[in-house]
């Protein structure tokens, strides 16, 4: 018995569809400067942190580190703390991030000046 025709027919091309991988989110300057990034950190630093001051240096620093860690976890949950810090530190060398950084400093400078004037 012969094989049926339709089984032997292999001329027809089978199209292979490549599935695109879902892109892995990156911790880049866009994410860093987005609302969840630096602006949130600025907000936290102004409002939320309460230090206990003299004599409690180490617990204060622990608090500070905890704040950073939680902020980083919100921003980019994928990375461990020190990995995330290393990535951000590297981003800080980019031209536009540097510009933003000096802008932030100048902003607070001028606001500090205003504050002292009003006093």
């Amino acid at each position, binding site marked *: 018995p012969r094989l049926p025709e339709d089984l032997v027919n292999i001329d027809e091309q089978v199209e292979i569809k490549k599935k695109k991988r879902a892109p892995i989110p990156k911790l880049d300057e866009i994410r860093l400067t987005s609302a969840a990034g630096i602006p949130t950190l600025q907000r936290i630093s102004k409002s939320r942190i309460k230090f206990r001051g003299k004599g409690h240096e180490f617990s204060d620093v*622990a608090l500070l580190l905890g704040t950073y860690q939680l902020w980083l976890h919100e921003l980019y949950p994928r990375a461990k703390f020190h990995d995330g*810090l290393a990535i951000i530190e590297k981003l800080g060398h980019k031209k536009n991030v540097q510009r933003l950084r000096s802008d932030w400093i100048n902003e*607070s400078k001028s606001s500090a000046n205003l504050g002292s004037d009003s006093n």
Partner: protein
Amino acid sequence: IEEFFEKRETVDPEVRAYVGSLVTAVGGTSIEQHGRYVLGDDVIGCLKDLRRWIKFYDEKLGRLDVQRVLAESNFVKGDILEILADWPEDGKDNKLRSKIALLCLELLVPLTWTLEVEDHEFTAHHHKHLPYLRLAQVGYKRAILQHDSKKILRQLVRIALPAMAEPKNDRSIRDDGIIRLVLYAIRNVVMITQPADLPADVDEIEISRSKTIDAFYYQDILQLLLTVASSMGDEFTIQDVVLLEALFHLLKGIDPTRLFMKEDELIQTNTQELKELMRKEKAMHAGYARYAPTRHNRFGTMLWLTRDQERVSTISGQSAISGPAKGLQYLDKSKKWNKPKTGGRKANEDKGSFEFDMEVPVSSSARRHLRKFVEDFLDSAFNPLFTHLRRSIERELDRVLEMHKMQYFYLVSWFLQAESSRRQHMKQSAAAKGKQKAGQQPEEEGFGIIAGVMNKETFVLLNRFMQTSYDSKDWHYVNSGMKCFTQILLTVQQMEESNNEEDQEIADNIQNNLFYEEGTHTRVIDLLRNYKDQGRGYLNAVTELAHVFIRMLERYAKQNTDMQIRSRRRTRKKKQAAQDTDTTAPTNGDDASGPEDVGRIEIISRERKFDFARFSAKFMQQGCVDTFVEFTKFYRDLSVDQLKRAHRFFHRVAFKAELSTLLFRVDIVQLFQNMIKGEACIDHDLSCFKEWEELVRQLFKRMIKRVQEHPELMVEMLFSKIPSSMFYLEHGFDKEVNKSA
């Protein structure tokens, strides 16, 4: 049969047949003469043939087939060593036997020659035989070191004795060659080690450095090395680099400071170290036990960590109960992703037999023999050998390779360190005796015995070597250069402290020489600043160099307030400079020196007053701080001295230079916090713990205060600081100069 086929595939069968028959014809043990070795009828012809085979088949064709066959047929142990052992002592004028012995030596040297994996000329043939041959060489070494009836190494030396007895001018080229051959054999024996990537066939201790040193002592090889070294320049000339290699491989990695400790003292330090380690281990367990679960592992605690905006994270495990810090640590630990590391470290660290940063332990008998050798060497051979070597290097002779320079500087640093620890121990024992005898100031020895390397020529050579190897990124070489420079500095310091006026004067002169060139200063800074993945030995060397250099320079500049330095800098002619400032920003103008500008640039050198504050300010930059942070990251493995080194640097940065802002970066803060309060903190009983705690506390105090006053620092703490905003962050206001400009 299977084995037969395997063998057939590795080596050309014809070669195997030829070489095999030659090996059999060399000789063998005789039953009639109670197992004595009997030479074959045409032993000289056979040995010569084998030499030819190695030369014209192995070397010319780029193969290792003959060596492989010789290794498989137990030629070295069964024939060569037997022939050498059988060479009778009284038969000095037995021409035939000494000729055979020489032939054996000529075969032994290529067979024990090191096979480096990284050799670029290696072909597939080489790599096929390499593992087998490297293991075979280990066997050779063991057989040579512990032959049961005769002292093989001594027999080898006997071959060269007639040539060595000849006065230098009467010696023929052949005689010189024989001496060199013996030295090469010695070097090869030292150099062979158990390859770390291959399984050990024999007990590693049998071929360890200690055993080698012991064997060298008992067979008078150390004496030979000493003789050749002390008459270097008079009696011997072309053997210098071979001797250098032999010494390098004999001494590398051995801690010279331990060599001169007394037996009980050494035992004491060893016990101390063991105690230290046990305490460390205990502390480690305690650190874990503090947060260890108190119930069984299926107890199933689950926690919520509340964050802002009413969001929570869940954490499981009981130890997270102990506090938010621990909880956060759990959160971190559960993350799967790791930042990919940039490669390249491996390539820099793995240099096979040239590695000298790995410490080699020596047994007490070997230590005793080696100490005697080093003392004699320093007293009689150090100056002649190292002066001669320096001249050979300066003349760039063909026999001097780049590698030899590295070995030269490593050995200089090694012997300087040995000399200083010997001096220290002599002082101590003199002081102990002085107590008994009361009074009597012991007479101090001068520094004449190391004068051969404490001169301007050596410094020039060292500077050039460090610069060239730095430029060509040979970090291993830079490392040895830095070690040498550090030791020279330390020796100068000791000379200055001695109560001999002449020595003090010399030390002063040397310091003048060392500190006069601004190039030296900038090089130290550059080395420190540009550390990246060169390995831990390098990291240790570079931080030590910086530490020693800064401290000595500081002292020297204080004593000599009118100190001058010579700086060379490239400047354009005034016209050009004027144009530049008109058109472009001055900073850009300096950097951009295109090829068309070169003609207009001239190097001028001028003297100016040295300003220590300005010099040390150059160390206060991110690159240098990062290197020291990288170094401090190993705080759990660092010794007290090393921890102190890092402490002094950070103290200098934060409080002497008022630049604590440089240290306000989250990763650095985290490191410091871990060192003092973390689970794996520095041992609280260590002497330097208090200092560190105080430093970190002061630093944190400043930081908290600064953050409260200027919340913008919170953002800046994520990054390395920009130079332009540094001053504002440190002081809270802008520089006056900036405002007026």
